[in-house]
């Protein structure tokens, strides 16, 4: 309707054409740097993935792997099993799990305006742990007909049920950030206590199994479970991507995001459900893997900034890379054994993460 743009109406307090080139040039370079970052991450991820396939407790080296890949039918059955049923599912689990956890962390950090939010701190991991422990100790499932997947199904049900409970209470109370964070913390401690109680009641064998489950391990990954993860990703990631701008607007605060036309409460709750689904699926398959949901988004933020259209893809790739590297480390630290990956992500990731944060001059958050 208006004939004039603000610039035309304002007249010439403006800078000259040289500055003009600078600003748009700077933004162009920023986008180019972002694309380069993605490409480098993809290359690193491909190399990491290949290395991940080469390592394992069994002595299956590069020639054998190449032989299996070259002509699976002619390869020894044992080699085929090691590659296709053990190493490949575990490496794919690292890839998909890293993407899911890091994107879930980025989404939670955006909607809760809190750099500490991730599936772990929201109580989802311990909820899953409690569900798994229930199945291990009593062999009971909240879902019928799950058969051998009773532990996975229970873990998922409790993790997602917790997210759903947080969602419902938050919806009743107006979806404020504090309400959601406090509920997450409350569930976190409640499930730690319940898990402790179950461990206290469990016999030695079940106790060992619970403890091992809580370490988090990609060794549990099977193709059917991975297909489920992929399905959830296929539904959630595009959906989240479409809301990237709304998530960016949330970083300006609730009121300003609303002024930009973002229905803040609805977006917060929908995204909470979506990222919880991603996280719960991974936790159900692999057990709790600490730290990827926290470190992935933070490293991505250092690389590409806070604009969610760029942050979400970058966080996904960083998360995948972190988990693939952790998988490699879990096999390389003590050749012949696989250390649970949940321990590796924390013990090796934490010092690296702290170094990155302390050395970075830019302010990460606030």
């Amino acid at each position: 309707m208006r004939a004039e743009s603000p610039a035309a109406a304002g007249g010439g307090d403006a800078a000259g054409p040289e500055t003009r080139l600078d600003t748009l040039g700077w933004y162009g370079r920023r986008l180019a740097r972002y694309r380069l970052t993605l490409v480098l991450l993809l290359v690193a991820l491909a190399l990491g993935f290949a290395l991940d396939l080469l390592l394992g407790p069994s002595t299956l080296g590069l020639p054998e792997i190449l032989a299996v890949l070259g002509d699976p039918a002619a390869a020894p059955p044992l080699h085929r099993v090691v590659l296709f049923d053990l190493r490949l599912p575990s490496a794919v689990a690292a890839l998909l799990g890293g993407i899911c956890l890091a994107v879930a962390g980025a989404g939670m950090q955006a909607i809760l305006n809190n750099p500490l939010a991730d599936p772990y701190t929201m109580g989802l991991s311990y909820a899953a742990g409690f569900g798994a422990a229930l199945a291990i100790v009593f062999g009971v499932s909240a879902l019928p007909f799950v058969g051998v997947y009773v532990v996975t199904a229970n873990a998922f049900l409790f993790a997602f049920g917790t997210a759903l409970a947080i969602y419902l209470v938050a919806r009743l109370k107006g979806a404020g950030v504090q309400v959601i964070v406090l509920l997450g913390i409350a569930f976190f401690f409640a499930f730690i206590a319940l898990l402790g109680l179950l461990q206290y009641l469990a016999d030695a064998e079940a106790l060992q199994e619970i403890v091992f489950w809580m370490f988090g391990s990609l060794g549990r990954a099977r193709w059917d479970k991975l297909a489920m993860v992929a399905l959830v990703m296929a539904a959630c990631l595009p959906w989240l991507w479409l809301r990237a701008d709304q998530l960016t607007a949330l970083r300006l605060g609730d009121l300003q995001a609303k002024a930009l036309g973002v229905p803040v409460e609805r977006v917060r709750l929908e995204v909470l459900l979506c990222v919880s689904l991603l996280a719960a699926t991974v936790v159900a398959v692999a057990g709790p893997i600490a730290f990827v949901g926290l470190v992935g988004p933070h490293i991505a933020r250092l690389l590409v900034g806070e604009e969610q259209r760029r942050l979400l893809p970058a966080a996904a790739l960083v998360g995948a890379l972190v988990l693939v590297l952790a998988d490699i480390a879990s096999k390389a630290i003590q050749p012949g054994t696989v250390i649970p990956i949940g321990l590796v992500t924390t013990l090796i990731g934490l010092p690296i993460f702290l170094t990155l944060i302390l050395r970075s001059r830019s302010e990460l958050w606030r």
Partner: protein
Amino acid sequence: MSGAGGGLSAERLALAYGRVPVLHGVGPLRAARGRMTALLGPNGAGKSSLLVALAGLVPAEGTVRLDGEDLGRLALPQRTRRLYYLSQAFGAGTGLTVFEAVLLARRHGAARDHDRGAELEATRAVLALLGIEALASRPLNALSGGQRQLAGIAQALVRETEVLLLDEPTSALDLSNQLRVLALLRRVTAAQGLATVISLHDLHLAARFADAAWMLAEGRLVRQGAIHEVIDPGLIRAVFGVEALIEWGRPEGPLVQAISPVERPQAVAAPHPSHPPTGDTAEGGRA
């Protein structure tokens, strides 16, 4: 679009935070197109609450119209394409760069850019207009309060809405930027026929740049009208408890200077809901 009867109007706006009422049926209010309307009043008068209520960002009672059209019927995204609210604390908590924040506002604003290039160019033009192109690459949380306010104003202008609701947008600006930005807002408002409402604590700046004003006290409208009708020694004494020196006819523009605090009349400090607090000087309110 900006006919004589056009502009932003509101009636019986009421708002409470929990059980604490902050607006007591404010209205009828009117902010004409092409004019700057100053929103004045002491701390806690309800200025910010009135602005968010007008913007439709809080569940307030009452009606808000733009050129006669009830804005309450519009969904949030449609409504915010027609009016933009800029909060006092813009951008303090985010590492988004100035350019990204302004581009984001452009992308979901009233203007429809044909392509990405037009979007980027519009963003750049507004930064240049405000003289902050050099800040484009800086994260908002690394800026000074005044620089952030300039970025906020850029976000407000880039959306090309018909109404601007600005909450103390110049409070942290230095003297030269205050004059520059208010002159710019006045120019843009007049040229584009915007209805601009701007809350200000500095009555001198209000007298100099606003065409009209609303005076608020304790959640009630105590007067509205042309700027010289509202910035009046008697009303300032009654509402702010300050003796003010006001000169309208100066060639350099009007001068308003607070001289000394005075005892505030009881009527404004604790107004009775059914009476206009300033007696015969009040034009609005719930009387």
